[in-house]
């Protein structure tokens, strides 16, 4: 069945306050729509259940990338094209620029927003592993207040998150402190362009005198939502990278990821390839023996 445009209300407030007031007036009733790269697919196929939609595309105050001394703040309405062309993102957060280049085609990148990617909450979301590796925080806004939560705590289940019914994801904050960190991101899909990941892994680590001083590892398509691999992080934290620590990290990662069989891949393939990516990342880090 095709989507019927008359069956859906779509309100376009001119201001952010207008959007927030509408969300507060009937909490949980209004579904925000930004670039439409997810919701319009459901609409065209006649499976969009939301009957009341509120437009975010073009609303001022949602699309910005602000560079501050110790962090950058990315408005949730920023598109992946915005992220690819921002000089601070490219220079200091290359994993995000790389992930942005993977999101569909040029025509998708010009419309899909960072906020949409996160709120949609696909387990395969391309931007999520990089954000987790960079210790991102999410700023949530409502007519009542604003609050900031670690992005690692944003997703709570399959397509579920911590947003209250009247809240909107307003911005993502990234600390500017990774110049000395080793950074890694790799996605495995069916083909190079336009493919949704079978698995993807990001890592960000600070190595001093051959010892892992700080590390975050995150993956997509291996659980109900993109997540940190905390056990693997714990295994290597404070250690030097050796074949033994890599082996232990692989085992730890296997104990915490819960991939499934679906149309894109199998659970077994995802388990094997995810820990291979982990090994590639850890193996690329300088070891105690010598600088790599």
């Amino acid at each position, binding site marked *: 069945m095709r989507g019927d445009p*008359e069956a*859906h209300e779509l*309100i376009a407030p001119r201001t952010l306050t207008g959007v927030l007031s509408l969300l507060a007036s009937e909490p949980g009733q209004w579904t925000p729509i930004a670039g439409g790269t997810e919701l319009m697919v459901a609409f065209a196929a006649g499976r969009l259940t939301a009957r009341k939609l509120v437009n975010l595309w073009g609303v001022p105050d949602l699309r910005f990338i602000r560079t501050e001394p110790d962090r950058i703040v990315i408005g949730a309405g920023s598109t992946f094209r915005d992220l690819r062309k921002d000089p601070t993102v490219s220079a200091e957060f290359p994993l995000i620029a790389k992930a942005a280049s993977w999101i*569909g085609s040029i*025509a998708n990148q010009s*419309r899909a927003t960072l906020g949409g990617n996160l709120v949609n909450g696909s387990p395969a979301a391309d931007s999520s592993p990089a954000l987790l590796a960079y210790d991102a925080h999410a700023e949530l806004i409502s007519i009542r207040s604003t609050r900031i939560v670690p992005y690692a705590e944003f997703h709570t289940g399959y397509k579920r998150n911590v947003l209250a019914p009247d809240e909107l994801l307003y911005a993502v904050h990234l600390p500017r402190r990774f110049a000395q960190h080793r950074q890694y991101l790799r996605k495995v899909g069916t083909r190079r362009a*336009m493919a949704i990941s079978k698995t993807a892994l990001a890592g960000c680590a600070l190595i001093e005198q051959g010892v892992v001083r700080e590390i975050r590892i995150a993956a997509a398509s291996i659980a109900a939502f993109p997540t940190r691999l905390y056990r693997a992080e714990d295994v290597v934290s404070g250690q030097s990278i050796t074949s033994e620590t890599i082996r232990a990290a692989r085992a730890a990662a296997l104990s915490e990821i819960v991939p499934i069989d679906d149309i894109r891949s199998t659970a077994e393939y995802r388990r094997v390839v995810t820990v291979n990516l982990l090994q590639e990342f850890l193996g690329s880090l300088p070891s105690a023996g010598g600088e790599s």
Partner: protein
Amino acid sequence: MSTSWPSIVFRVNGSPQSVRVPPMKRLLDVLREDLHLNGTKEGCGEGECGSCSVRMDGELVNSCMVPVVQAQGACIETVEGLASNDEMQPLQKAFLECGGAQCGICTPGMLMAASHLLARNPRPTLGEIREGLAGNLCRCTGFIRIFDSVIATIAADVSVNRQRENNAR
């Protein structure tokens, strides 16, 4: 439903347009049904194939994924706007000469994606051409003739420029 919808105003290929349609109606359907611009095609209807590509405020977009209310105030460019006074653009001529169009369904979107690429980057590498057209699927040509068409357009532009430089000397 006999609701009278508020008007949505935008420009298409330079001409002001005003439509009274449900705000959720897809830009693709407004172009084809309300403005009778049938050059823009629907392929997959889910942002994978690019046959509905148009430019909106200078960005390439899939018009099947744009609720028309989001086009309020925008400048839209469609394939109908490429030729002027029935004179084809060099890109269109190159598609004809190089066999870049066969069945023709992907062609309007392919032309819009290619012209968007060349507007941004007049001398793209083959890698950049491939990336620029990665969201446009063609089931006839195997893509090589389409890449050849874009390369021929660039080559023609280079030779025109060289001629101009020679004439200026």
